């Protein structure tokens, strides 16, 4: 793999979230959130549960309208679901009556019809090979393990060749060993495709190992309280978790989060 040197400071912002506010009834879930992602950047948002991370992601994906403010991707405002935005959730949510292959092809089938889906079968098979479950292509989801199901969900996200990947705690339902492994897979995929990615997580080490920048969110009302640059070299590997630098960063973030949560 080529170690791509990232120079986020010079890359132009492709994703702009401007003064984003979301209220549910009288409750303010997000309050004037500003953030930008640069092309090819890996952003991670971390914060206590209920601080509005999923809400933010859904608005960024065009799945939920903001109360005010706007989201702009590649100079076009996001006003609904878009083909160039890929999404992944905590649950794989595979349709139990479709095979793994059928599930991966679902976005093509919905947008372009059955014929286009058939034409894309080769590409879907390649993706399944890429994440190591090529042999499970004709298997129904009920027979897949949690890790395999999430791999299939990754393929389903990638089949439309999105420019941006929005990931809402994608591996948090998996056991720790599988999760570490999947995170490294995710990094590889993002580097290969030069995809701009945005990950919601509540695991600090996960955010640090994957992200170029971490956005720390604070609750009531939800807002970005701090942005931390992670300048660990790429590609990263799990051994880095044991380095002193990694430990320092994790410690720093934990302290920040502790302050947000407990005002200590």
């Amino acid at each position: 793999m080529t170690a791509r040197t990232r120079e986020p400071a010079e890359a132009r912002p492709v994703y702009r979230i401007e003064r984003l506010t979301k209220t549910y009834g009288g409750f303010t879930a997000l309050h004037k959130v500003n953030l930008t992602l640069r092309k090819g950047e890996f952003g991670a948002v971390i914060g206590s549960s209920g601080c509005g991370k999923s809400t933010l992601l859904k608005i960024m994906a065009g799945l939920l309208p903001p109360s005010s403010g706007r989201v702009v991707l590649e100079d076009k405002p996001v006003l609904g679901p878009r083909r160039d935005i890929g999404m992944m959730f905590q649950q794989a949510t595979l349709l139990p009556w479709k095979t793994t292959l059928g599930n991966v092809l679902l976005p093509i089938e919905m947008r372009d019809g059955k014929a286009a889906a058939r034409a894309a079968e080769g590409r879907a098979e390649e993706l399944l090979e890429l994440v190591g479950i090529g042999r499970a292509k004709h298997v129904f989801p009920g027979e897949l393990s949690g890790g395999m199901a999430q791999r299939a969900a990754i393929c389903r996200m990638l089949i439309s060749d999105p420019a941006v990947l929005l990931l809402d705690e994608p591996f948090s339902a998996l056991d720790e060993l599988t999760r570490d492994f999947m995170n490294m897979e995710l990094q590889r995929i993002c580097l290969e495709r030069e995809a701009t990615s945005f990950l919601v997580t509540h695991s600090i080490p996960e955010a640090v190992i994957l992200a170029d920048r971490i956005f720390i969110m604070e609750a009531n009302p939800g807002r970005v309280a701090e942005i931390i640059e992670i300048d660990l070299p790429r590609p990263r590997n799990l051994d880095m978790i044991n380095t002193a630098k990694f430990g320092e960063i994790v410690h720093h973030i934990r302290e920040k989060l502790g302050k947000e949560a407990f005002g200590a």
Partner: protein
Amino acid sequence: MIEQSVTAARAQMPEYEGDTVWSEHEPLIDRIPRWVAMTGLFIAIVGIWYAVTALEIVSNIILPTPMETWSDIVFVGGNMVSGGYMLEALVTTTKTVLLAFGLAMAIGFSLGVLVGETKFGERAVMPYLVAIDTMPKVAFAPLFIAWLGFGIASKVALATFIATFPIVVSTAAGLYAASENERMLFKSIGASRMQTLVRLKLPTGLPYFFTGLKIAAVGVMAGAITGEFLGGGQGVGALIRVSASQLDTPRVFSLIIYLSFLGLALFLAVVWVQKTFVFWNKSDKPGGAA
């Protein structure tokens, strides 16, 4: 050294000579094989029935003996096999039941989608359906007979009327069954409302729909027979009424047996179609839709 002393200590220990098998046993009644249990229960019930008739606890006019009933079952069976009037009755009732079941499926499914998929259906149609559903629907029978006459139509109408409601309710419930995650997924891949309905909500709701069909299969039988009791005509229900009025109780019993075959066949057909169409199981495995 340590190993040696452990071995030595072990040599001094007495061998455990108790049970080596778990002492947990299923109670005797749960260990009887199914076919033995079923046959045994059948014999017991017929035995009690025989005793009640033999001891004349109940008059034979009211409750026939098992032997009388059996020979009448054989007689009715013979009549049907040889194409007699009782076969005609069974065919008429079967036609009524199948027609009503088909109509109830079509109407129930359409109304179910209207209620489950549109706000209008949920707000305006559902309250009326609930109101009608709480009425004793059999009471409408005279009305249907007055409107549609003594032929098969009035019976089909009553049976359809009774069987439609469970299908409406289960179809609508099935359409609500898709999870928030699945809806989000479909939204995010740009699926239209129609696509979400046909490709997500309907398949997810299939198990519910079939549950409704099973209830409807029972209802359609009850409706058809009630219609035939009250509206006469050519069906098995009319035969039962005539036999009962002549105190021919063995005949009543054997006709009921043949009717229950019809009901069972319909029910099993639904089960078979369900097994064929809903081949996936909504398991709690992580891969399946949550």
